[in-house]
């Protein structure tokens, strides 16, 4: 590996994107109509400016949703092999759930779940 290996990085990076875009352009069928210009497929045109401040509650809900998301990601593989591992695995997942539960409890008591 010499200096040329360094060149491979930028070239490969640019080339991959270009090739992917080119292939997509070849394979895709193009049509243009008025509905396509709208911002969302099934939405309505926005009223007023979109550069406004959103309520911070949305972000809080998104973050709290993450707690359950992570929980499911770990619980699913755990549930598959649960029988083989016995009590130790049970205790370990319990510790994990308690940590996430504390996060939820904290958010709850700090009234992050209340929409005011």
């Amino acid at each position, binding site marked *: 590996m010499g200096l040329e290996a360094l060149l491979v990085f930028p070239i490969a990076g640019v080339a991959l994107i270009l090739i992917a875009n080119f292939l997509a352009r070849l394979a895709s069928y193009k049509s243009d109509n008025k509905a396509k210009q709208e911002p969302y497929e099934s939405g309505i045109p926005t009223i007023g400016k979109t550069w406004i401040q959103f309520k911070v509650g949305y972000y809080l809900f998104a973050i709290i949703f993450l707690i359950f998301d992570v929980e499911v990601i770990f619980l699913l593989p755990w549930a598959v092999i649960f029988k083989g591992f016995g009590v130790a695995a049970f205790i370990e997942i319990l510790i994990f759930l308690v940590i996430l539960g504390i996060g939820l409890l*904290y958010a709850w008591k700090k009234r992050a779940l209340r929409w005011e």
Partner: protein
Amino acid sequence: MNWNTLLLMRQELVLTTVILILLVVDVIVKNKKSLNIIAILLFGIYTILGFFPSGNNELFGGMYKNTELIFAFKNILNIGVFLITMISVSWVNKKMLPLNKVAEFYALMFSSYLGMLFMISAGHFLMLYIGLELATLPVTALASYDMFNRKSSESGIKLLLSAAFSSGIFLFGISMIYATGGSLYFNSIYGNIAISYLSIMGLFMIFAGLAFKISLVPFHFWTADVYEGAPTPVASYLSVISKGAAVFVLMILLFKVFSNFIDLWIYLLYGISILTMFIGNFFAIRQTNMQRFLAFSSVAQAGFILLGFLSADQVAVSAVVYFIAIYVLSNILVFAAVQSIGLASNKYNIEDYNGLYRTNPLISIALMFGLFSLAGIPPIAGFFGKFFLYTAAASKGFYLLVFIAVVNVTISLYYYLIVVRAAWLRKSDNPIQFYKSDIFMKISLVIVSTALLVLGLFSPFYEYIFSISNI
């Protein structure tokens, strides 16, 4: 995995528990002021647990390792974080108690510290990276913790953006090392990695990512702005704990993982050390704000730390660890004094300190001790810290660099003495009024001042560090 191996990482486990307990207690307890004491107690218990002896072993196939040196270094930082917890009580009580944001301050600080513990113990590049991220993200929240102060928000966003950039560079460097070394474990990279353009590039990028944390010169631009805007306890945390942990990790990487690149990085460090010392010192002279001043002084101190790296052996390791132990104490002392003055009078400029000795003699003695120790004036421990760094560099024949460092110490003496002169010799029509600090501030000031005096005259401490210093 059994209980013995789990006991090896008990510091991290206990600290995680401490953070969780803090969050639970926060929602249960009605009297929010008591959260300060709970945080100090919990962290105190954790600090004491750290002093029980620990084994020399690896976990998770080498991802996590603990040696006696790592353990001792963690204990040094534990004490530092404990002291910062104590001095931040007065700030939190004044600014954050009305907003009901007490426990989060400590929880964020401890989680950032948890990241540093994993960083120090890492034996795998991804472990190191996760530790680095965990150490950085809470600190950005802490830097903007003073909610109604625009400067604090500015420092938070500056820290966040530049930290994200630097960790991106760090990650890119890791990918290059993986491309040449074929592994991310320190143990398997060590000795197996060939010197090629790609691996050298990787080394430089990893170095840049850590140099950002240590605020070495081409990567120091965030330092002054962030330190100025951040709450004083957070600035002291950044300058002491964050820097110390990054220096230790850099030492492990350079001395062990990249030890066959030594001919390269030794000259890199040589140049950066000179640049860092000069630029840090010259910019520090011009500052009028105390927190900006301390930011540049800490940049200059980082240049001195690099001096110790150059011998790359047991002497280097022990000199750097010893210097960091002293530096942690002396910088905390100065920051504590600045914070207590700033809280009482809302004054942060050097010229506001005129006539401080007449109104508040005790705090000006503490300030003087801290500054003398940073400058390296003999009876106080800071002198010995610098002295060992010089011996480390001189032992491999870098006499020119030692000479440059001595010149820089003289420059730094000038600006440290400017502050001391303002507090002790200058008179002012409108001096800072007499005030009383709270009990935790007083205790920590007394502890640190005596520790600085005693450590300078107590050689077994250095001998102990020397005896365990093998990476």
